[in-house]
């Protein structure tokens, strides 16, 4: 028998892309190309290589920003989760960063750091970091008390409790934070390309809009969403490989 969930996924994709195709043929708007037109534009950009050049430009601030956010964010998160004093001092900063619409800072960042890579990396970081920090801290605080107690009763030292109990127990939530952070980072990267200087994928979007080449514009947007989703799935797979027994929740009841 064919896998039910896969069949339904394909069916659901066919329905949505079919609706897109029909809506494009009607057409509901002069600016709404059909699915096939957009896909052929994507194929054209893939074959002439322009999309790879664009992604090279888009992904470098994204990769740098996400890497900084992940390392600093998980580090800060662990520290905040482990120390009440540190939590009191620093957690509110990240709560503010999480709540306030920091996209508004982009004009100032441009004034301070110019329109280059630094500004874009900054945008990615301020979007991605708070959720990584807050999730990691919450994950550390939520480590089941009975597991820590068990380790203590079997004479674990503090660093052993951190490495053998807290980190593995917290890893699903840390990864969840990382996924949210990466997705916020994508938002930041595209935002900075649309708002600061049109480069990479943002440039394709802006330029093809200005010359009314809508299939190319849709193709670029389609590809960046696809890339984000694929990358996040990859992260999920990585998590499953790293922490095999973990994905089925806790066994405490």
């Amino acid at each position, binding site marked *: 028998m064919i896998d039910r969930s896969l069949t339904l996924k394909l069916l659901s994709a066919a329905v949505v892309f079919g609706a897109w195709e029909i809506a494009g043929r009607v057409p509901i708007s002069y600016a709404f190309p059909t699915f096939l037109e957009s896909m052929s534009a994507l194929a054209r950009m893939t074959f002439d290589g322009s999309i790879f050049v664009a992604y090279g430009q888009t992904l470098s601030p994204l990769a740098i920003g996400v890497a900084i956010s992940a390392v600093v964010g998980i580090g800060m998160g662990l520290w905040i989760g482990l120390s009440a004093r540190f939590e009191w001092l620093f957690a509110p900063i990240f709560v503010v960063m999480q709540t306030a619409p920091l996209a508004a800072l982009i004009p100032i960042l441009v004034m301070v750091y110019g329109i280059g890579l630094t500004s874009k990396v900054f945008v990615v970081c301020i979007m991605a970091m708070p959720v990584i920090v807050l999730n990691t801290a919450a994950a550390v605080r939520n480590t089941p008390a009975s597991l820590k*107690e068990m*380790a203590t*009763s*079997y004479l674990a030292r503090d660093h052993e409790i951190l490495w053998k109990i807290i980190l593995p*127990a917290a890893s699903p939530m840390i990864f969840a934070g990382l996924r949210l952070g990466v997705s916020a980072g994508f938002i930041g990267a595209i935002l900075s390309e649309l708002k600061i200087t049109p480069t990479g994928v943002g440039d394709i979007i802006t330029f093809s809009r200005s010359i009314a080449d809508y299939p190319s514009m849709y193709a670029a947007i389609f590809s960046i969403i696809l890339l984000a989703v694929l990358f996040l799935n990859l992260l999920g797979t990585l998590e499953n490989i790293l922490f095999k*027994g*973990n994905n*089925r*929740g806790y*066994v405490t009841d």
Partner: protein
Amino acid sequence: MRHAVPADDIAVSVRNVSKTYGDVQALKDLTLDFPRGQLTSLLGPSGCGKTTLLKIIAGLLPANSGQILVNGQTVAGPGPDRAFVFQDFALLPWATVIRNVAFGLELRGLARSEREAIAEKYIREVGLAGFEQKYPHQLSGGMRQRVGLARALSVNAQVLLLDEPFSAVDEQTRRKFQEDLLELVKHEKKTFIFVTHSIEEAVYVSDQIAILLPRPSRVHEIIRPSNFRDKGVDNIRRDPEYLDIVDGIWASLRSYVE
């Protein structure tokens, strides 16, 4: 009939221990001895501080005053002479059965091959041979607690502390556990301290039962069943002395149950 135990045969001794949580007095001036090689139950209504006492003996909680002696040594924290079995099993969800069982030894720095050999022996002993590479979520509740028990046995501690270990497993599994526990006490030559809220369970498995009463928590009575233990596991539950002790304990606890 067993008589009063000589002092050098006391494995664990609790001396005038008090413990408060904020304004609540969990334990007040509690003194109790645990004879070596025997199983002592701490029995009482909920809120009588029996788990608190067990965790103080384990060194997981500090006492406000008083002293715990294990083999004459004062307890300041967890030590290699005691092993704990948890009510909620406290297994690492991300670790296989064998790593869970060997975890205590891993923390003591034994080499992998060495600790896994020991773990395998105890996995066989608790009847889980063949499940070494399974994860806790793939086991039933009873099997999970066998893993917890094997982990406690593998560190070869003199004193085993069991915190309501069978409360999360079903009745039939629990009966099997109780029979296995009697075997274990007989062969392992260890001191068992067993917290339970089941009167029948306490009378069935114990050499000595300490009845704790709440508000303020204190030792109400120490009961030492005499002659039904040697009549075989099948006859204990219909022995007149067993039934009398169960009834007697219920009579003294009845008024404390909400």
